């Protein structure tokens, strides 16, 4: 089966007052239909930047400097703003953390879903309103016809996240990017929201990229996990493989810091050192080298990604 998204050598830079930040360096991954890929890493590792850059949502300071990203055969890196705008919300949709703030406070949730349907499905206002109610039903909101007229402040956080999902999947996209979708929700609501996403993905064959710092969540919900560190994907493997046989020193530290893979990467303060300064001109080829206890002289050679087993890729000169 062909991949929904195929990202290769994808690099992004930000211009700041204090220099150029090399935020992403040769990021590569693929997502197949129906598959859930988790992008896992500390905050600042480049997970969200990857999503924003793919969809053309970087602010003016950010720039894609190389590589390719094919979504259903369309090259995103060179696509015009108009093309990207037509793809966003239609073929590739995104949901965010803090759902109540992510919704327009003075527009009813039905209208907000309807806006997407009118834009991408070309529906009339009336058809869009009916479609919005259908979507609310699809994400399991009780009494959808009445709730369509509600404003975000009248709904709970979990309900708002369901509305966000409804907005995202309204046009049956091929790819859903969920950026920390459960942060700020209580535990039971988290599970419900993840279940809804999983069910919709299974029904429509939608691919999902789950961006999270919560390794336990990734382990539970994703078929594959890509670990990010300082703008690099350092290890990418099937979830079972990655948990059982992590090869990159950083992945091992992550797992060690969250022994049962049930903890939270917030505990990662136990990993010595911090993310390197990505503005430095003399940035080491391996950005983990400064924190690594397996560092070899060879680690100062240009970084290469290699498959150490089928479907198990790492970027390390001295894997464990």
């Amino acid at each position: 089966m062909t991949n929904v998204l195929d990202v290769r050598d994808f690099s992004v830079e930000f211009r700041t007052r204090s220099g150029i930040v090399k935020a992403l360096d040769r990021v590569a991954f693929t997502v197949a239909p129906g598959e859930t890929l988790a992008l896992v890493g500390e905050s600042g590792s480049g997970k969200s930047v990857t999503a924003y850059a793919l969809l053309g949502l970087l602010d003016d300071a950010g720039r894609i400097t190389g590589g390719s990203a094919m979504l259903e055969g369309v090259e995103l890196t060179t696509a015009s703003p108009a093309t990207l705008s037509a793809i966003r919300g239609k073929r590739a949709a995104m949901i965010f953390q803090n759902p109540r703030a992510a919704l327009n406070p003075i527009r009813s949730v039905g209208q907000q879903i309807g806006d997407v349907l009118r834009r991408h499905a070309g529906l009339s206002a009336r058809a869009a309103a009916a479609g919005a109610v259908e979507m609310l039903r699809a994400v399991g909101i009780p009494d959808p016809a009445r709730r369509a007229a509600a404003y975000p402040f009248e709904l709970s956080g979990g309900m708002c996240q369901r509305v966000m999902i409804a907005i995202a999947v309204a046009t049956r996209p091929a790819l859903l990017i969920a950026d920390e979708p459960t942060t700020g929700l209580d535990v039971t609501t988290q599970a419900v929201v993840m279940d809804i996403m999983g069910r919709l993905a299974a029904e429509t064959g939608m691919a999902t990229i789950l961006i999270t710092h919560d390794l336990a969540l990734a382990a539970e919900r994703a078929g594959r996990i890509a670990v990010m560190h300082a703008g690099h994907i350092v290890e990418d493997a099937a979830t079972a493989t990655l948990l059982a046989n992590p090869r990159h020193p950083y992945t091992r530290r992550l797992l060690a810091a969250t022994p049962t893979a049930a903890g939270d990467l917030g505990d990662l303060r136990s990993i010595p050192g911090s993310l390197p300064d990505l503005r430095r001109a003399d940035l080491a080829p391996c950005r983990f080298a400064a924190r690594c206890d397996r560092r070899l002289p060879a680690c100062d050679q240009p970084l290469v990604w290699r498959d150490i087993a089928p479907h198990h890729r790492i970027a390390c000169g001295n894997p464990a």
Partner: protein
Amino acid sequence: MRGLALRLLGSLPALVAVVIVTFILTRVLPGDTATYFAGPTASAESIAQIKAALGLDRPLPEQFWNYTKALVRGDLGMSLTTGQPVLKDLLARLPASAELTLAGLLIAMGIAIPLGILAAVKQGSLWDHACRIIVTAGVSLPVFFTGLLLVYVFYFLLGWSPAPVGRLDAFATAPPTWTGFYLIDAAIAGDWETWRGAFAQLILPAVTLGLFALAPIARITRASMLAVLGAEFIRTARASGLSSRTVILTYALRNALLPVVTTLGMVFSFLLGANVLVEKVFAWPGIGSYAVEALIASDGAPVQGFVLTMAILYVLLNLTIDLVNRALDPRARQA
């Protein structure tokens, strides 16, 4: 609906405060009414007599009660200068002031809101710099001086606008009264010559007021638009692929307008004051110039009537702003 009723009730304290303050001002206003009536040669006895006749020798609470009763009847006293009841004078002149103030406000909003949006959307652009300059310079303009400058340039030098002699020049007749707004009344009457005449008279004073109100509106529009454009729901709208038109107008602007509407209360406070000065510059026959004339003649009742009218208008405007805010913001309806 209950919230609405509560809000209406909420204006009552302000109205009561206004009445109390104007009452206090009545009691201390110089050019003591009794002395004035009695004439310069009056004896102390005749002054006391007139005081008794006017009820000014009663205890203050009783005077306040009488004052409030008179107000409820619409009795604001007589103007010594015009010989008319103050209420009648004020009602006759109010439309002139209202037409001028509203025209000024429309001009200000018509320029300031698009400018503020452009400045925020294109941050650091020429529009942004223009907005900054206008905001700083605008609040520094003495409104009576800008009015005079405009008269000098557009009347004396260029001859584009008519002499600043009020709402219509001496040869024109006012259109039949419907609303008291000449532009509307002339349009209703189909009298386009009068309409043009009234428009020509209105434009300079309205622009003067508009320039004055522009700065605060532009400032708040820019600031709130900037804040909204950085909001998370705008990111959602972009991520949903909505057109930039929809993102900016439907999503960002409507939210950004909420603080702008709230700020209009402050703008009206400035506008109603500036209105007095502009009316004097342009000999505009509104309630502001009426009050100024009365001030010069030490004619107390019209001044009190004017202050009371302005304050009540201001309370009503604030109420209107609140209602508009409720219409725009579902969260305000809830509270």
